[in-house]
């Protein structure tokens, strides 16, 4: 570990040591993120103890907490949550690891294109995937069931989407698998092939080498991906809401949602009380992932880094075929459903009159707020895609490569941002921007931003902070310090070293973070809906309006808006990837082209590494 020398140096006045520049920087970061992250969370939890009716003076009591945990079904819902999470994680994690390994570590055909298709899958809204599979697997009318019933020996179709396996299947088909593949591939690309070659020289097969050499070195990345999923265990509810309610199957998140839907006015206090369980998860996750990632070195990219790919021989076409099959299920099918459905009078109904129509496109394209929403989305998401990789890579650098005091506190603050679900965090952010009474005065520092697009930019840029910093942190853990040290010995300053060494080395991850944050900000609803106005509404809020339309859910029109969001993200992702491949270091050069070992001075000038 090294620090930033100039920032870390301390001056003395009259023999008294002054805080270093790094101390000042940490204080600023902790204050800024502390206020931004902790204040909304604290406001939500503090207000959960206020049981006063609207218009009445504050009345502190624990009634909301008693109400929240007195429902006997809560514990059944909690059990259901862990069961669903456990099963789809048991299936999706090994599957995603295998796919990521095949794409990043083997000479599979069209690796970058295949990887990109998993990104596209990740961009498709969960609700579209859920509804699409409902029409395929409804026990009575599902198209797949109907097709199977044509077989002579089958009386009844085997699928029932309204079941626990149905819910798990939709999770796997939504982003439980694609999200993990997307996040793991860049880490797998950072594998030093000489370590794998050593395994094979020792007589191990490709599969055994993967298990014994590659995967242990990928522990930081896999831990991060698992923890990020675990911390949001109480936040996903769309699939369970649609498929679980008809069979009286509830999970914890649907119970949280019920306190908002079943009470008038909504009981945010009881919802916050239930959400507090996430704090327990964070209390377990944070130290665990710190322990897992710090107990040994996971360096794979150092001055002696040797890029290269594994040849799977005759198995290669089967692996490629398997991945393509997954892409058809995860990407092609839902996209085709979205496009086809957008031209149907009512998606899934072949007896509607007329069966096909362009009126949903008319509704969207002729809406007076569509262009405005598109423009706002482009501004917000583009800004996020540019700012967030740079900002969060610097913060992740502090987490991994400095010994600055307070970095654990800062990382803990980032984890705390997952403490409340989106539906509540939006309320917390509204209170933060409008100001709140601190007892001795009012905090209204951010009030001037309220109602402007700058408030939205701030929210969406910072929305992906936890995922972004943890992913980049995982990659930094794979990087050896020797290259940075070589550059510094060669006289480069910290900034120059950062941009000439680190940025090219972690470029694939930065591109991923840029695209991921573009998707997150383009799809943001709960966090921004309360601070957006008609003039600053985004496409996702526009789609939400269509989903809660006065004349009923305009699913087809909302699907069209989703297609626009996916299309925008694809364009951005293509541009960023093209740019990233030019500027960054490719760690996947085929063995034949990359036989020479990369020396430290060469890495200090990354341009020489290009294939």
């Amino acid at each position: 570990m090294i620090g930033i020398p100039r920032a870390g140096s301390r001056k003395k006045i009259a023999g008294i040591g002054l805080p270093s520049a790094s101390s000042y920087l940490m204080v600023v970061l902790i204050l800024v993120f502390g206020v931004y992250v902790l204040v909304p969370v604290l406001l939500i939890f503090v207000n959960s103890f206020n049981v006063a009716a609207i218009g009445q003076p504050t009345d502190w009591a624990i009634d909301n907490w008693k109400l929240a945990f007195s429902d006997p079904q809560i514990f059944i819902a909690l059990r259901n949550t862990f069961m669903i999470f456990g099963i789809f994680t048991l299936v999706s994690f090994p599957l995603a690891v295998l796919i990521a390994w095949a794409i990043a570590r083997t000479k599979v055909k069209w690796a970058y294109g295949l990887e990109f298709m998993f990104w596209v899958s990740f961009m498709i809204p969960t609700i579209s995937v859920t509804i699409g599979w409902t029409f395929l697997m409804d026990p009575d009318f599902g198209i797949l069931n109907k097709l199977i019933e044509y077989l002579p020996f089958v009386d009844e179709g085997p699928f029932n989407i309204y079941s626990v396996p149905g819910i798990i299947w939709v999770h796997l088909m939504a982003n439980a698998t694609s999200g993990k593949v997307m996040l793991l591939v860049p880490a797998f690309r950072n594998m030093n092939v000489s370590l794998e070659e050593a395994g094979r020289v020792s007589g191990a097969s490709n599969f055994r080498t993967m298990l014994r050499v590659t995967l242990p070195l990928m522990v930081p990345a896999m831990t991060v991906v698992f923890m990020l999923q675990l911390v949001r265990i109480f936040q996903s509810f769309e699939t369970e809401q649609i498929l679980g309610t008809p069979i009286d199957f509830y999970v914890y998140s649907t119970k949280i949602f019920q306190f908002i839907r079943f009470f008038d006015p909504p009981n945010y206090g009881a919802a916050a009380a239930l959400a507090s369980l996430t704090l327990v998860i964070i209390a377990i996750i944070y130290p665990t992932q710190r322990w897992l990632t710090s107990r040994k070195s996971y360096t794979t990219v150092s001055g002696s880094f040797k890029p290269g790919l594994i040849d799977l021989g005759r198995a290669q076409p089967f692996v490629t075929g398997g991945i393509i099959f997954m892409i058809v299920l995860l990407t092609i099918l839902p996209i085709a459903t979205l496009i086809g459905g957008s031209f149907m009078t009512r998606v899934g109904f072949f007896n509607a009159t007329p069966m096909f129509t362009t009126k949903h496109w008319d509704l969207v394209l002729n809406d007076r707020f569509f262009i405005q929403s598109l423009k706002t989305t482009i501004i917000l998401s583009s800004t996020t895609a540019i700012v967030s990789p740079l900002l969060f890579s610097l913060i992740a650098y502090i987490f991994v490569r400095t010994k600055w005091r307070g970095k654990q506190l800062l990382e803990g603050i980032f984890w705390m941002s997952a403490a409340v679900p989106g539906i509540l965090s939006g309320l917390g952010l509204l209170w933060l921007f409008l100001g709140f009474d601190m007892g001795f005065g009012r905090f209204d520092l951010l009030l001037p931003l309220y109602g402007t697009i700058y408030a939205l930019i701030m929210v969406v840029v910072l929305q992906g902070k936890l995922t972004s910093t943890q992913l980049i942190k995982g990659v930094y853990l794979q990087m050896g310090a020797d290259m940075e040290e070589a550059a510094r010995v060669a006289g480069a300053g910290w900034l120059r070293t950062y941009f000439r060494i680190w940025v090219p080395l972690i470029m694939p991850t930065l591109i991923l973070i840029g695209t991921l944050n573009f998707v997150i900000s383009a799809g943001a609803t709960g966090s921004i809906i309360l601070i957006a106005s008609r003039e600053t509404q985004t496409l996702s809020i526009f789609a939400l309006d269509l989903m809660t339309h006065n004349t009923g859910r305009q699913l087809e029109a909302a699907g069209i808006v989703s297609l626009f969001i996916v299309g925008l993200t694809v364009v951005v992702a293509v541009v960023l990837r093209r740019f990233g491949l030019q500027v960054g270091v490719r760690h996947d050069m085929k063995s034949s082209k990359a036989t020479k070992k990369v020396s430290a001075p060469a890495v200090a000038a990354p341009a020489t590494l290009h294939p």
Partner: protein
Amino acid sequence: MKLQRFGMLVVLASVFALLVAACGSDPTPTPVPPTATATVAANVPTPTLDPWVAEWEAMKAAAAEEGELIAFLCCGFGSRIGDFIEEGELALGIDIVNSTGSSSQQWNKVKAEREAGVYTLDIWTGGLNTSQNRLLPGGALADLKSLLVSPEVLDESLWYNNELFWGDFDTQKYVFAYGGSASLAEITYNTDLLDPSEITSYADLLDPKWKGKIVARDPRENGTSQSTALFYLLMGEEFLQKLLIDQEVVITSDGRQAADQLALGKYAMCLFACTTEVQAAREQGLPVQENFPGTVTEGSRLSTGGNTLMAIDNAPHPAAQKLFVNWFLGKEGQAWWQRIGADQSLRTDIDLDGVTPGNIRQEGSTYLLVERDPNFNDKINESVAAVTRILATR
């Protein structure tokens, strides 16, 4: 070299984003279609008294100074809400901006803004329970009665039952109910699976042949609670127990999903506020019907259906607010609202263009006026509590 390109790209992209942001913060008013202007000229309220003409023009001029109205137009506006807003803009000469979000989100926003001394909303339309549970106790409403100056609005003979229906029963000045649709029976159905003559009383729903054939929107949710309360008040808790438990009613939280399954023939009936979604499905040619053709012995009710008007106090655009309420509750405003939606206005001097047949009040019929019971809101809460108890046993 590549680093330079990267830096250049970042700078260019940032400048582009800031430029677009600067442009984005300046909303451009929607151009007025020339053909529509002619319509408006013909539709300008025809005042009967000269002082009113002068007052109307003065109100328009004052509103034009403010330039816009920020409204939260919830509920009874149909898919053509854009047409309504456009017509309102043409008639009033101001921009009408419909605030986004659900009723709950809007209330959170208004409440937090007021605590910070920020006022961004002029008008709110929505359900009676929203005003009873949030806006009235939150002290967010202005005296609407004092804003009403249009003779054709104040003339009680032009309204149903020759009276103005104020939803704030004690004060009679904040919440104006303008919607009054007939609701013959709270049942929507699949036309292939149910002959409406089979149901003459809600008690018929307990016939074993309907076991497992009824889908319902979650009766505990805000949007369905009025319908739940009606069943509870008319039929009692025991009936609901038999209906929800013995008849194995399938509950879904999504009205569209319920309508889909009804249209697919998976269920014969849909209960608890399925009308909107079923109407959409019927209009798309599917074999469902939201207008129950007969009546049930328990009686039909008259429902405001979420169509009440409220003026927010400390409005940012007070002149535009006053202009809007007088236009909207007038003959022209109500005719437009009725034309783009499905509900019937409580005004009696406009034609029925646009009203769904099942919503039309029948001459001489007597309706259950449950919402006019000042304790109806408490009864809603009571009924939701009863249903919650019942469903906990499933």
